[in-house]
């Protein structure tokens, strides 16, 4: 089993893929195993997070379990 990171908008280009399977664990540890340039983008001030479809009020303390999906949401530009 694994957890999944989903990259929306320009973060998909930064990651080079729309989603990525990762080892579960604390988000800081998950990010530490990524390309540092990508990790910096993902932690951008204007990037919101959604865990299993629910927006997180803040990014601290996130721990990913098996089967979790964490989405990184840059500012929207719709309509």
């Amino acid at each position, binding site marked *: 089993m694994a957890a999944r990171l*989903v990259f929306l908008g320009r973060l998909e280009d930064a990651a080079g893929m729309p989603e990525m399977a990762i080892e579960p664990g604390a988000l800081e540890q998950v990010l530490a195993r990524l390309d540092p340039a990508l990790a910096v983008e993902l932690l951008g001030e204007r990037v919101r997070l*959604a865990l299993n479809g*629910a927006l997180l009020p803040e990014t601290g303390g996130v721990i990913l379990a098996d089967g979790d999906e964490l989405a990184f949401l840059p500012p*929207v*530009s719709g*309509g």
Partner: protein
Amino acid sequence: MPPADVRLLGDPFDPAAELAAFTARHPQAGGVVSFLGQVREGDGVEALELRQYGPLTLPGMQRLAEATLARWALEGLMILHRHGRMHPADPIVLVAASARHRRDAFAAADFAMDHLKSDSWFWKREKADGQWRWIEPREQDYADRARW
């Protein structure tokens, strides 16, 4: 509150047919106000792509519809929004509000559009000169939302 017709569409739609069907469903409305957004031609734009995120995008549109219905006295509300790839002149978004009196319909359609532009979970990129480029949000979109 009347139910809203909210759809996230992966394929092209016919705005005239949708608006005719919506209007026919609300014969008691004295006025129907609609807004159609389409892919703008020019600046070398060959294509536009809107990406959505399943768990957030449609539920967010449904919440926006509920907020719009709660705020104005409407007979009906329709919000249709494309995702996927589009070309210049393709319809992107259609909002229609019907009401007994026109002011409510104008305001509701305006409110729904401002929030679709600034708050909805869509990410947009354009292809020009063979290159895809992500579009950042415009300050004007936040200013438009702040009017409410």
